[in-house]
């Protein structure tokens, strides 16, 4: 029965961790792009954009990612749209990350003093020019630590894609446990791999934050 050596376990987990990394990258980058678009709609003038984004954020932050993945994969299938698992996983994770990133970035943009908007408009700049040259360069700087911090959530969030058949790190852990009956070794290794993926991210987020605070104090 037990043909797995510890090395086999680790090797299989590491192979599966490639998917975790790939899914994380896709959802983080894609989520960033969608999130940026939503951000513009959210802080822009007009009615529809902000309302839509608010509802969007409410929906994606108010329901478990697990359910979102399930409905994205199978729900669309019900309507005859055959989405492959990687696409469904990618899309659901992207939409989910976008909801969180938009909110994080909105906070950053809103933390830029009103005076910056007023000074730049009194110099004759239009909305896009203000965003491009005055607001975003400042907001981006303060947005880096919380954004990197959120990437940790993305890495952990990819664990849920197993519901639609993805064999990433967590799922591989379950499968290997079922084949070996060694939950402690396997989950211990799984936790360790996650930690190795996530800790550098949280750490750099903290360091960046500290740097930023020091920089701020000089103002």
């Amino acid at each position, binding site marked *: 029965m037990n043909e797995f050596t510890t090395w086999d376990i680790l090797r299989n987990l590491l192979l599966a961790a490639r998917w975790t990394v790939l899914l994380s990258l896709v959802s983080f980058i894609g989520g960033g792009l969608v999130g940026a678009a939503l951000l513009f709609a959210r802080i822009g003038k007009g009615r529809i954009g902000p309302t839509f984004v608010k509802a969007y954020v409410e929906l994606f932050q108010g329901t478990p990612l697990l359910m979102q993945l399930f409905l994205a994969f199978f729900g669309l299938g019900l309507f005859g749209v055959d989405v492959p698992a990687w696409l469904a996983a990618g899309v659901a994770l992207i939409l989910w990350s976008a909801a969180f990133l938009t909110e994080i970035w909105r906070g950053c943009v809103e933390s830029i003093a009103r005076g910056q908007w*007023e*000074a730049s408009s009194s*110099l004759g700049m239009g909305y896009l020019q203000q965003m491009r040259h*005055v607001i975003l360069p400042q907001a981006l700087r303060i947005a880096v630590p919380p954004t990197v911090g959120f990437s940790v959530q993305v890495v952990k969030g990819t664990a849920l894609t197993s519901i639609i058949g993805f064999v990433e790190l967590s799922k591989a852990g379950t499968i290997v446990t079922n084949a070996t009956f060694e939950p402690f070794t396997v989950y211990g290794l799984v936790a360790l791999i996650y930690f190795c993926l996530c800790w550098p991210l949280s750490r750099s987020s903290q360091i960046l934050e500290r740097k930023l605070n020091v920089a701020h104090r000089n103002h």
Partner: protein
Amino acid sequence: MSLIEITEVKKRFGDNEVLKGINIDVAPGEVVAIIGRSGSGKSTLLRCINGLEAIDEGSISVAGAQLLPDELHLKALRLKVGMIFQQFNLFPHLTAGRNVMLSQMVVKKTPKAQAEAMAKTMLERVGLGHKFDAYPDQLSGGQQQRVAIARALAMQPIALLCDEITSALDPELVSEVLAVVKELAGEGMTLMMVTHEMRFARDVCSRVVFMHQGRVHEIGPPEEVFANPKTPELQQFLGVTH
């Protein structure tokens, strides 16, 4: 002919009528000081002239052009009228020089070399030629405010609006900023400034506007207004201040 014509301007925030029908004409080259108690609507008036707040009634025209609240007209207006704020509002991520260059390049599409030359000139003019590459947080408050003035001047406005531009400064830094303003006034720039520096108002301004509860309560040349306040409100205001 007036450069800035303010006619029956009213402005409400919700139920609070902050400007209750303001009439002021400013001739080219005039230096107008606006004084008055906190909350009397001084800042709101300047912000309306610059289009940062939309007015509810009345009209404002600058150099003959009516102020209309659409992007295009606003931009045209703001090219004519510069504004300087109490909090400087320099862009913290850009050097002093870049602060002055930015709007020329972005708004007027001035080529970089030319914008840079202009920035150098304007920083020289406010006595900060050597600070071209300094970031705002490396400058004192007085220096920051002078950069802000240079930034506004670089757009070559025909008038400047100044809202308590020395109030956020430590006392010893006030004079360096006022000196720059005085020089501008001497060179014929049209200025409207909210200020608490009564002595400066008396020395430099051609007219003083005393605002009270959203109205122009008294208006006249400084000798008259300061030496001979007619209304009890102005008397009290000057009494408290001096």
